[in-house]
């Protein structure tokens, strides 16, 4: 079984090397004429204003948090789904209860307005 993972390890090496070669190759082929104006930060042709930081918008963080919770829930459900054949109906209902509790959590987040963008 470890053979399969060896293939994946080699695939990772190949998948990083070949695009890296493709990105490094233009260093010899493409022109390299850096000058101060070309390297300015792009702001639709205007002079840049202020540092490159972004106003803290809490929505980004909330969405990432809700995603984290649901991701962990799904990860718990995968072994349940794989062992499905060997489970009696009672065990299937247990999984359904698991999902229902988290559906309730989603409803709470919805009512509280945590899923609004504005």
């Amino acid at each position, binding site marked *: 079984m470890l053979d399969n993972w060896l293939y994946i390890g*080699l695939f990772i090496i190949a998948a990083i090397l070949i*695009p890296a070669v493709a*990105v490094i190759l233009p260093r010899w*082929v493409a022109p390299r004429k850096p000058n101060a104006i070309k390297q300015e930060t792009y702001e639709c042709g205007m002079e840049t204003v202020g540092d490159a930081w972004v106003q803290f918008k809490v929505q980004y963080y909330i969405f990432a948090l809700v*995603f984290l919770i649901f991701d962990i829930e799904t990860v718990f459900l995968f072994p349940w789904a794989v062992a499905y054949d060997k489970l009696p109906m009672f065990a299937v209902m247990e999984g359904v209860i698991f*999902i*229902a509790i*988290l559906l309730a959590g989603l409803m709470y987040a919805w009512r509280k307005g945590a899923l609004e*963008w504005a």
Partner: protein
Amino acid sequence: MGDPINLISQWFNDLLLGWGLGEKLVAVLSLFVGAAILVTASLLTVVVLIWVERKIAGRLQDRIGPNRAGPFGLLQPIADIIKIFTKEITTPDGADKVAFNIAPVLAIASVLLIWAVIPMAATVVGSDINVGVLYIVAVGSLGIVAILMAGWSSNNKFALLGAFRAVAQMVSYEVPMVLTLLIPVLLARSMGINDIVQAQSTWFIVIAPLAGLIFLITSMAEVGRAPFDLIEAESEIVAGFHVEYSGMAFGMFYVSEFLHVWTIGALIATLFLGGWRGPGAETWPILGLFYFYIKTFVGYFLITWIRLSLPRVRIDQLLSFNWKFLTPLTLVILIVTAIVDKALAIAGAARWLYVLVMLAANVLVGWGTMLVLKTVEPNRPGRVRQEFPPRPVAVAPEAADN
């Protein structure tokens, strides 16, 4: 005779053994060469896809698409590649050099890695790991890290904003995507992708059509294809998180997007349309490869068709569509599939009855959703149809004599 790929790999192994290398080294080398060939083949597929996409886009927009470079414009992608290779890669002031250069390579590596586990024929499977489906989700998350790296290291606040919005979109749509991936796993009782293909004596699109549809929609949002393409939004925020990239580095992001759409087509073909299965695919593996490519192309064409027909959505519409519609719907369909499947298994239903009941359950859930939507939003602004009384148009105007 119908199994050329294994023949070639056997010949290669014998060749290396004949040169006197140790057996383990030969195994590792031939695996590495196989991986490198698959990576290169995927990158070359993108070259063909660029031409296919532009031709389809042209025809669907009532024009001809590229037809100057070579017969039928077939050399157009070659011209594009030569152009991208020879453009200068500018690094903006204050950019974080290491992260700036690693991000495109990581973005395309995360898409290429998916191809390691997809079975393309009965005997051609890269790596038959038993956790294939979760592996696909895992390498998708590497792509998300690459986007964050690209946006932050450009030292450009618009790139950073674009990267945040892109990550918010991709991360939100990953929830229903992983939940719909649970349904083929449930139906096939295994996470290994080859097992899922073997279990599709009836294609899963028939047993779980809603799950297939939701997977299609969420994958389009993951890639950033229209109507969810605010990540690039060419006419609005000028390329979002990769605005500071030029030349081959940008080319890598571009290639990774095309390859990702092709990979999504391959995933839909494998998980819902039966993969390499078809008449005669077990005895002649080359036929399996052929069926796989046709099904992948069907998925790719569907995604491109949708892209060229629909306008872009806004970010708040995007996110409420995901969290308030797709996620509850996916959870409900998951519960329904689990209960119905177990009930049918306990009752010992025949195969045709099973397929029919599952299809009926999906249709019922879909219909119930439509009902709920109609009761919840009957008078949405913008859906009001004004009634204009019929008015004769072709009459002589009122005499305007003054």
